[in-house]
């Protein structure tokens, strides 16, 4: 299963890389990419765990970049 999200207010490229790295490492995630230019985050992962994945990913983003708002794209 693959879903994309908008990371509104993503201003820092190093943070984008950090978010990508940490979301990729989440349980059930098989791949994640953050596009700094389009501010789009694409997560690919286990369908059964996807609700949990979204929650954890949002938490990761809030932790790293509290000003960024995660929105469904």
């Amino acid at each position: 299963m693959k879903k994309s999200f908008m990371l509104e207010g993503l201003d820092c490229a190093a943070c984008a890389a950090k978010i990508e790295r940490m979301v990729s490492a989440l349980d059930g995630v098989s791949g994640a990419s953050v596009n700094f230019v389009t501010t789009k985050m694409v997560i690919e992962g286990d369908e059964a765990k996807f609700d949990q994945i979204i929650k954890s990913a949002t938490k990761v983003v809030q932790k790293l970049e509290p000003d960024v708002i995660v929105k469904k794209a």
Partner: protein
Amino acid sequence: MKMGTNQKRLLKMIIGAAVYALALLYRPGNETISLVIFIAAFAIIGGDIILKAVRNMMHGQLFDENFLMGIATIGAFGVGEYAEGVAVMLFYQVGELFQSYAVNKSRRSIVGLMDIRPDYANLERGNALEKVDPEAVKIGDIIVIKAGEKIPLDSVVVAGISMIDTSALTGESLPREVTEGDNLLSGCININGLIRARVTKEFGESTASKILDLVENASGKKSNSENFITKFARYYTPTVVAAAAFLAVIPPLILDGANFSTWFYRALVFLVISCPCALVISIPLSFFGGIGGASKNGILVKGGNYLEALAHTEIVVFDKTGTLTKGVFKVQEVVANDISQEELLELTAYAESYSSHPISVSLKQAYGKEIDQTRIAGVEEISGHGVVATIDAKMVAVGNAKLMWKLNPDFKEASGVVGTVVHVAIDGNYKGYILIADEIKEDAVNAIRGLKAARIRKTVMLTGDAKAIGEKVANDLGIDQVYAQLLPADKVEKLEELLAAKSAKGKLVFVGDGINDAPVLARADIGIAMGGLGSDAAIEAADVVIMTDEPSKLVTAIRISRRTLGIVKQNIVFALTVKALIMILGAVGFASMWAAVFADVGVAFIAILNAMRVLNTKRYHT
């Protein structure tokens, strides 16, 4: 919305700067009052940075940008450099504002490059037209596209004639005429006429959505430069912070007469430089800009890694049919003995009229008139030889040399003829032959010439055709090496040989039309499918898709790649050099925190401006 926050930031900075000016000019002679005004200015300008630093620290995020800036500026207060503490914070904020502005602007211009997303569709409901979201339109619905509007969904024209601007998808500036029965691709623009069209694909499956999806997700496959710099950034900050700590503590302990606050100040210079963001920011912008610029030229690059690899192209392998040649057979020459050329062609076309083989089709096309079936009394097909037909009571034998030998063992084939030869005998007497060949694309000449100019080491052509045909095409185009008479499986084998023979750093590019060459596309370092417009299979299989059928786009792609990479390298070298220089100067006491802030945000700003040069797509045209 974004400007709103930036305006607020700007306002805060102006007020802060005014208070700062007051602190500088108004000298009450009382150290405490002066300090209070400086602290007020600092709070107005940098309060949010300190807040963020504290908040992130509580989240366990040490060493982030805000934290480092906060420590550095508060540290400046600590050693009594109030004015400098505030100034550095102000300068940093101004730099950040510039940076944010530049990033937003470049984001917008990159996204603007790919402005093919349709906003609405005019859906026909009964007699009325309704403006709807393209996602709401279903297959089979009738939509109306007015002059100047973007085609919202892939569809086929049911009424109307118009000129279509396909440049957003193909980079081709010449408009194309469409009329009833022609396919329309979403993302193109209807220039003048009014067209009614029946939708053939849903929005998500339509060309515009697919292309946008591909380009936007291209960042999933990162280039080596991107990976290098993100990895570098991970170690950079801790290293510089450690160096700062070392600088603050060790020299005052071991050097005679060293002043603690002097070295502490130098350590602060390091902290300001230790933020990695400035270093990282221009790289993804450059690559995405390059990918956007390529898509503007009708070249879809499916990842930063492929864009990067294109610059190192060493060998280019072309498939012949459909890539370098038009893939359409055409009568090139009619050689007639004791019969007019017209009659020979007419009888041949009649004899072949029952077949749908490409050769027969080309004969009928060359003849160009209706076939009168009543003139044909009988047709006998001789497998692997040709046909023998009775036309106007004449026995017409049309086929290859084997058929001629069958009729007359003394038959001698003319030598030196390149192409597919159709021999004709009437009532047992040899009457001549018709030469049929595939035509070379005019653009193929430019492509090979362009590749040579771009110092590509070797060009190779693979073909299933006969040796003579392959060699002639290669000769005409100036291709270095040909492998002919290959079965599809042989093509992979030849590619393996070529891969083994190339240098370790050089890349092998294969260009095909995406039909029957998926294994070769996959095996090559970079597989390029041509004529991808509307062909899902080609888009799936390839790493790079050329939307038109011009092989010279490969040259354009290599140019974009080299330019992008050049700019990325400039930025990496520039940023690292400036930072290293300021660190060295800072360690020996020649660089102030001012210089450090420049090395951080100033360099980032310049790097972003430099990165935006990739968007100047006019330079890539051949």
